[in-house]
């Protein structure tokens, strides 16, 4: 009995030592930024660009044939772009911020109904010049991207197809699709070209006009993570917790709100993992790692609209209230504990001032 107990203890000790020795050395701040950029940002920016490419042809097919198959293919192509976009929506710096590209790709939230208002005017005027190459970029951001295209794809009164009432709509839908290809391509190019944003973040220093140190590059990524948690919590979950809030979920006309939520939180989780912030935790704060993992499980166990996610790993389905609270808690932990443990100072005022 004694022998087996000793053997058991020895096994536990060896497991503990093994996990101790396997504990990864925390990455440098520059390495954190590099990992996030190489394993998350660039692949997701590329995925968005790739998802957008088939969109103009998918629009054209519907407009030529009007067939249900072509409509289904267009809806699938559109969904692919929306899901890909959800993975980069929170990267609101660099090429996405430049020239207002983010609003042009995805004008949401839209509580004032700008998309419908602006689109109505354009459809009323039927000015074909607006659909000429390059001309759409001069119009309101509200009609340049995915939400306007969504309206045209799902308008039951005048569906896209080879009909006279749909002729201008098809021209305009094609122009939007091409514009989305252009914008997503510009974002990718802005990141990846020599001297682009990837180089800027990975070569910080006194002569760099944006990032003076690897810490500043890493802080930019942490801020994006925090922005993403805020956006998902405040704009996707909060309206369901506080029923006084009236805000249409993202891409609800296409039934993509669940897919948008799933892609948002999956992306945020991946970005979080890429940073390896938890590697900096001292043993007395190691509980945070478990808490964070449990929180990610909770966040990803809901479909974002009160139901259960197909990917749920929690045995029960968490309430939206719990998910919302957990997301806020995670935001606080990342901003005030994990980033501090990692020696990254994300300022209260710089993060979200007014």
């Amino acid at each position, binding site marked *: 009995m004694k022998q087996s107990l000793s053997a058991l203890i020895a096994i536990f000790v060896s497991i503990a030592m093994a996990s101790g020795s396997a504990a990864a050395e925390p990455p440098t701040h520059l390495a954190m930024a590099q990992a996030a950029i190489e394993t998350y940002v660039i692949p997701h920016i590329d995925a968005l660009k790739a998802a957008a490419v088939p969109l103009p042809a998918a629009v054209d097919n519907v407009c030529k044939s009007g067939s249900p198959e072509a409509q289904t293919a267009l809806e699938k192509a559109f969904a692919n772009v929306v899901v890909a976009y959800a993975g980069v929506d929170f990267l609101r710096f660099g090429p996405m*911020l*430049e*020239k*207002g590209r983010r*609003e042009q790709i995805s004008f949401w*939230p*839209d*509580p*004032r109904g*700008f998309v419908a208002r602006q689109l109505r005017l354009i459809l009323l005027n039927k000015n074909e010049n607006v659909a000429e190459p390059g001309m759409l970029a001069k119009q*309101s*951001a509200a009609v340049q991207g995915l939400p306007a295209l969504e309206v045209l794809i799902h308008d039951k009164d005048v569906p896209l197809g080879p009909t006279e009432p749909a002729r201008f709509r098809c021209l305009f839908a094609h122009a939007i699709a091409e514009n989305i290809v252009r914008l997503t391509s510009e974002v990718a190019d802005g990141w990846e070209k020599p001297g682009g944003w990837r180089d800027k973040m990975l070569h910080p220093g006194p002569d760099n*006009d944006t990032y003076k140190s690897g810490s500043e590059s890493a802080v930019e990524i942490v801020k994006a993570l925090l922005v993403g948690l805020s956006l998902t919590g*405040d*704009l996707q979950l*909060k*309206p369901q917790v506080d029923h006084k*809030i*009236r*805000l249409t979920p993202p891409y609800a006309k296409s039934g993509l709100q669940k897919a948008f939520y799933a892609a948002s939180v999956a992306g945020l989780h991946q970005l979080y993992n890429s940073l390896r912030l938890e590697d900096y935790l001292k043993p007395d704060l190691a509980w945070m790692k478990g808490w964070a993992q449990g929180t990610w499980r909770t966040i990803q166990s809901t479909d974002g609209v009160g139901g259960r996610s197909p990917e749920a790993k929690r045995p029960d389905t968490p309430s939206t209230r719990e998910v919302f609270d957990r997301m*806020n808690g995670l935001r*606080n932990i990342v901003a*005030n504990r994990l980033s501090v443990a990692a020696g990254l*100072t994300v*300022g*209260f*005022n*710089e993060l*979200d*001032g*007014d």
Partner: protein
Amino acid sequence: MAIDRRSLLLGTLAFVGTGPIGKAFASATHHDVAYVATARRSSGDFCIVLLKADGSIVREIALSARGHDVAYHRPSGRVVVFARRPGTFAVAFELGRNTPPHIFTGGEGRHYYGHGGFSQDGRLLYASENDIAGERGVIGIYDVGRGYRKIGEHSSYGIGPHEIMLLADGKTIAVGNGGIDTVPDAWRAKLNLETMQPSLVFVDAESGKLIANHAMTGEFKSLSVRHVTQDKAGLIWFGGQWEGSPSETPQLVGSAGPDRELRLVDAPGGGKDLRGYIGAMAVSNDGRFIAASAPKAGHVLYVDSESGKVVGKSTLKDVCGISSEGKQDFAASSGFGVIRYETAMASTISEHQLQDIAFDNHLRRIA
């Protein structure tokens, strides 16, 4: 947590909405108070803090959500703290009286932008607000003596009025119209960046008539005018936040008057060096030096209002709150709990580090 417990002993009143009132609220002497600011505890809770000059906390008032700026009427000791955009509450209290805080709102269909100010006689309070359905900015007018009852509104002559300031003449209100539309249902999302029309306007406080309008146009159309202060010559100095392409960031600090055109300060490194963002403005007590804090860059820029030239630039991580101190010096507060006194030439006089507290955007001088 230690700070929390100490604050409780010193006389904290915690309230969420209209919670119970504690006797201890007025136990601290108001003569000790040098500054009022909003802040966040490491627990994530928001509060108002009343500070001594050495940075120690005299009193703490819990808030149910994040606050922003502080209006102060020196003769009466009245203080009002406004919710941050798009919040809807304001909290009023008096430094020298044993009265509980009073909570009021801008009414149905309005939210605050976080700023306001008292009339010189202290009978009226003005607040920058959003007429949400009307998609227009307004200056809410409140009767202080009747429990901050709202008695009227003036137009702000723009969207998104941010800091408003009653000028030294007691008759004119300067308004920084940020130009940005916000709807509380979409939380803090900026809804109209491509069509924003920021401006610095001057409004007659009594009649509400427009006196002057300096609109940001052309290459400056995305420069959101946010914070204002007035120098000894009567000019208004403003600090802007750039909402356009970062690569095109212009200068962010400038001045104008009802009868004088708008001019931007030629700061070395330009607005890009300040990360396109000014978080607060202040003037020295003698009215000569202007301070503009840039929290994203971690700098305070100092300008001599007589020459219009930059005379100093200090560095403090996440600095935002800025207020006058002495004749020509300033106090700056940071999101990392630092209160620093420095000259307009950016020399540090002293620095105090508080634990467990992040100072929010604004710091208001009381004594």
